[in-house]
């Protein structure tokens, strides 16, 4: 079986007749509506809650900064996932790459305290990238040469990555005097400079945006990108046109893993400043949603990442002022995800109703 990636992943059908920008926005609006239903169902004033959420996420300088901080890792994992999807590889292993990348960065950060900032950061970023890519290597080769579904291998290797880093931090690099498993702090000069003091927002965001630009450039301006796209869209045409499917597949998977490694690495260098066992709330999986929501389109990915960033940061912060429990935020976010990809335009009666209204 060659075509492992489920059909919808190859771009997905163009929805409705909405113009580009609106087309990317529509799902989020629909989703918010659906979330409102849930809130009312649990006897809450949806508008009030959304208001508080928005305020907690965007209500001021620090809030916005923290939201952007929460957006950063998802932006990376979103790009990482989209890179693979575009080439028809359904890499669900970004989470794994993220963990090993994070560990590699942290290890560099606390192992070479004598290096000056710039080279130390560069080394950390390099090793994070290598670790992340290495984690995707086996699934890539297995898919390319043995036609082994990358879905299973990457999914399984996620668990392995989490356990492996847990082992490393517990048995070899444990910080003294704390109750949970975490590595020593990275050297101060290894921290990415903060963009806004007092917030978690670091230069990682800029790197993420830079990467996004690179992603756009790759797929709309480079022959390599064209090849990868062609492989994902029309493997047989690509093959007959002289594209080496194996090479493309491996390149895409490695690129995906590499960016995944950065997702973790920069989270460590920019925010956590050490490796913490099981630190990721599933950035990698959110990345899948982001890539699909954004239809692998750069702006779509950015919108998707912001969307989840707002929910994460808002969902956490809102509890400082209101008593809305995180579980309800999760319900809302889950519903949002479901309906963000639904196309209510397909409901005849709704279209007619909208037409009349």
């Amino acid at each position, binding site marked *: 079986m060659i075509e492992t990636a489920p059909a919808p992943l190859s771009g997905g059908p163009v929805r409705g007749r909405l113009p580009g920008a609106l087309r990317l926005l529509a799902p989020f609006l629909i989703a918010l509506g659906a979330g409102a239903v849930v809130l009312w169902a649990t006897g809450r004033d949806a508008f009030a809650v959304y208001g508080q959420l928005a305020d907690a996420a965007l209500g001021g300088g620090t809030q916005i900064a923290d939201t952007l901080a929460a957006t950063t890792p998802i932006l990376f994992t979103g790009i990482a996932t989209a890179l693979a999807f575009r080439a028809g590889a359904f890499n669900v292993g970004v989470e794994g790459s993220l963990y090993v990348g994070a560990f590699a960065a942290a290890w560099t950060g606390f192992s070479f305290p004598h290096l000056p900032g710039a080279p130390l950061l560069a080394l950390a970023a390099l090793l994070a990238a290598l670790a992340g890519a290495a984690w995707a290597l*086996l699934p890539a080769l297995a898919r390319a040469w043995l036609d082994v579904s990358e879905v299973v291998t990457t999914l399984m290797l996620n*668990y392995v990555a989490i356990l492996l880093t847990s082992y490393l931090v517990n048995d070899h690099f444990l910080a003294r005097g704390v109750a949970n498993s975490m590595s020593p702090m990275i050297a101060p000069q290894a921290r990415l400079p903060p963009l806004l003091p007092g917030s978690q927002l670091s230069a990682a965001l800029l790197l993420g945006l830079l990467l996004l630009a690179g992603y756009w450039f790759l797929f709309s301006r480079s022959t390599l990108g064209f090849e990868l796209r062609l492989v994902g869209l029309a493997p047989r045409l690509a093959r007959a046109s002289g594209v080496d499917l194996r090479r493309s597949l491996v390149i895409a998977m490695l690129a995906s893993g590499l960016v995944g490694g950065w997702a973790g690495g920069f989270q460590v260098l920019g925010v956590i400043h050490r490796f913490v066992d099981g630190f990721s709330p599933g950035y990698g999986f959110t990345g899948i949603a982001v890539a699909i929501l954004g239809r692998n389109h750069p702006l779509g990915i950015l919108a998707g990442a912001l969307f989840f960033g707002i929910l994460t940061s808002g969902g956490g912060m809102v509890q400082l002022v209101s008593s809305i429990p995180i*579980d309800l935020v999760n319900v809302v976010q889950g519903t949002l995800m479901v309906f963000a990809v639904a196309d209510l335009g397909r409901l005849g009666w709704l279209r007619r109703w909208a037409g009349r209204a």
Partner: protein
Amino acid sequence: MPDALQAVLAAAAPASASILLAAMGGAVNRQGGIVNVGLEAKMLVGAFVAVICGAATSSSALGALAAAAAGALVGSAFSLVVTRLGANEIVAGLGLNLAAVGLFGYLLPVVFGVSATLSPPGLVGLPLLRIPLLDAVPFLGPVLSGHDPLTYVSWMVVPLTWLLLYRTTWGVSLRATGADEEAARAAGIRTLLLRDLSTAWAGALAGLAGAQLSLGLVQLFNKQMTGGRGFIALAAFYFGDARPGLTALAALVFGVFEAASFRLQGGELAPQLVQMLPYLAVVASLLVVGARRRRLRRRRELTPEPGR
């Protein structure tokens, strides 16, 4: 050693039952063209409903049935969003899982006044069945006998699924739908309806899987008790290419190696390394299968025509 092996196998049987059930449902679903990432959520719902109804009726059987029904219900709803509203099944599935966890996290304290674990009074677990003759078989006795009914159901579901897919018109139509929806529709098959049915079926089995967790393995509900088993099931039917036999094999391989890892823990090796075992086992077996397939293919392709 043999009785160590026996212990492992005996433990693996009920432990892998929930994965097996969910994976079989997922396989049928996948044959119909839907990759069901939402199994986790349906298992959780099943586990919950099983406990509630099981306690209310003080009958584990009714609890299990209710769980299946609930799973089917959630499955259908999920399916409608996918088939009728064209929602991407992956995102929708991930969303469903998130919503389910949140929902129970919200309900348990508010409605039941507990933080995570619910074990209502009068809750009776599934009985452990001793199969008269099987029991006596020397080595296999304890392995095959003395498990909860749903474990046996999970075994019976494998041939059942095979019959369903390959020996019923419904199965043929479903496989056609998954393989080439346009062609299937042209043949007059109501592909959307078929997909919905397959998702409902997957939901029902996932619901049973949940019940096996909350009434069979243990007798209580915990909001995290599915512990990623839905994703292992996903891996299983991807592993088996959605074919019943291979899918079941994957589920059992995982179960056996997990049970083994539980016993290997505490030795020289660090616990995390031992815990990797089942995941690595799945990957390794995939690679072996792939490598053999490739060797065969290449030998076939590259045997030169013998000169006359």
